[in-house]
């Protein structure tokens, strides 16, 4: 019999990521999802350029959270639901590798797909540069916010995909959760919640502590650049990402119980 070697955690995650990345493009669904998202984001921003006559990406970053409510669950439901449905979860979970490495590899592939969407909006930045002198640092912060928010919502979608064998159930649960976590940061929702329980400050509390939209807006709409105001919201979104990835790992392992 052969001697028994183990693939290190990082190499495992990387190999899983490469497999999942290739598998994603095996069907037209990934192409279609990415193309629709790129189209929606570019159309919104171009509309702002030409109709409002403003040389900025504000419209793109304003639209992105709502696009992500649909896009993140659409991509994230791939993380585990399909494996439960096709029974390949049994294949994954009997390989001599850590469940965490499998989940991380699958998640990184999803993050790569989402990054493709963001890359698809870069022609807008080139267009801005040709038409004038855009604030590139602010735009970079916007993209950082877009990446961090997308990473968190993908982790949430991935977590729900470990709980549902039906991709549709995973999609609906993730979309609902993403919508709530974003909506809680909306000023109107905060005001309504504050009004429901006067004096409690519930809406403001949830908006500041729980909502993801606040952290994203802090990054995207900051009037000037400084490291603290850039890193804090990124860390907040990263914490949410790690929390839900941990949940996804537990959810995937739960299938063994």
């Amino acid at each position: 019999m052969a001697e028994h070697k183990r693939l290190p955690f990082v190499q495992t995650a990387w190999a899983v990521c490469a497999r999942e990345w290739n598998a994603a493009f095996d069907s037209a669904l990934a192409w279609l999802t990415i193309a629709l998202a790129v189209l929606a984001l570019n159309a919104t921003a171009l509309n702002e350029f030409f109709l409002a006559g403003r040389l900025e990406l504000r419209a793109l970053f304003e639209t992105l959270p709502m696009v992500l409510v649909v896009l993140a669950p659409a991509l994230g439901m791939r993380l585990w639901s399909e494996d439960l449905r096709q029974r390949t979860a049994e294949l994954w979970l009997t390989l001599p590798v850590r469940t965490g490495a499998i989940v991380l590899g699958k998640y990184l592939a999803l993050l790569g797909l989402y990054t493709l969407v963001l890359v698809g909006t870069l022609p807008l930045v080139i267009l801005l540069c040709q038409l004038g002198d855009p604030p590139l640092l602010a735009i970079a912060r916007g993209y950082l916010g877009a990446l961090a928010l997308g990473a968190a919502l993908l982790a949430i979608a991935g977590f729900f995909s470990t709980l549902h064998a039906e991709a549709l159930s995973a999609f609906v649960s993730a979309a609902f959760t993403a919508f709530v976590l974003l909506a809680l940061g909306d000023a109107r929702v905060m005001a309504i919640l504050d009004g429901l329980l006067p004096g409690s400050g519930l809406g403001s509390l949830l908006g500041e502590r729980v909502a993801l939209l606040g952290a994203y807006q802090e990054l995207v709409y900051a009037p000037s650049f400084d490291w603290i105001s850039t890193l804090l919201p990124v860390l907040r979104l990263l914490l949410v990402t790690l929390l839900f990835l941990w949940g996804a790992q537990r959810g995937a392992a739960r299938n063994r119980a």
Partner: protein
Amino acid sequence: MIRVEGVHKSYAGTHAVAGVSFTIQPGEIVGFLGPNGAGKSTLLRMLSTYLEPDAGRIEIAGIDTVRDPLGARARLGYLPEHNPLFEGMRVRECLEFLAHMRGLNREEREQRLGLAAEQLGLAAVLQKRVRECSKGYRQRIGLAGALLGDPAVLLLDEPTHGLDPLQVLALREFLHGISPGRAILFSSHILAEVAAISSRVLLLHQGRLLLDEPTATLEQRARAEGINLEQHIVRVIERAGGSTRLG
């Protein structure tokens, strides 16, 4: 090589496996027999570490499957009941990926893949996508995947499912060829297959182990009673209070 001691597993209050114990030594091919729903797949899933037992202890090559599931997995090859495979991958890519997950380097992967392709006659489909392969080829791909790590323990859940008689015969010869030094446990609900392939039979019924005997002894007993092996097994089940009638 495989040691099972007092293993229990329940689903929603129903005992799928109730207090099963047995040991399988290297070089043995053991057939796991039982009607549908007897608990064969549940027990194999626990052996493969996919499920954890509620009580009892399982050792694979001396490693406790609950304490060190990764260590146990590294020493076993497993072909699950429905033979799940990565459908969109080409057969070569799929097997290479599975070998990579087992920690094999590029050279070892090439060597093992070549060997598996030769032993199991997969050369013709290596460039095909898994979903394009016939049932017979899919079973062979699953078996190749289980053997890539050169495991000390091989667990096969219904490996003959969907195979034609010639393929069953080829599988039997193949298992005999790879059995030296390896503990092989395979499940089936077809007695003739179990008798033909295995040197020992485990009979599981309603989660309990009713019988654990060498195939030759069983055949002798059946002959002594003037009945065939099938009738003998039916008697064992009926004596244990089980029904073998439809409905």
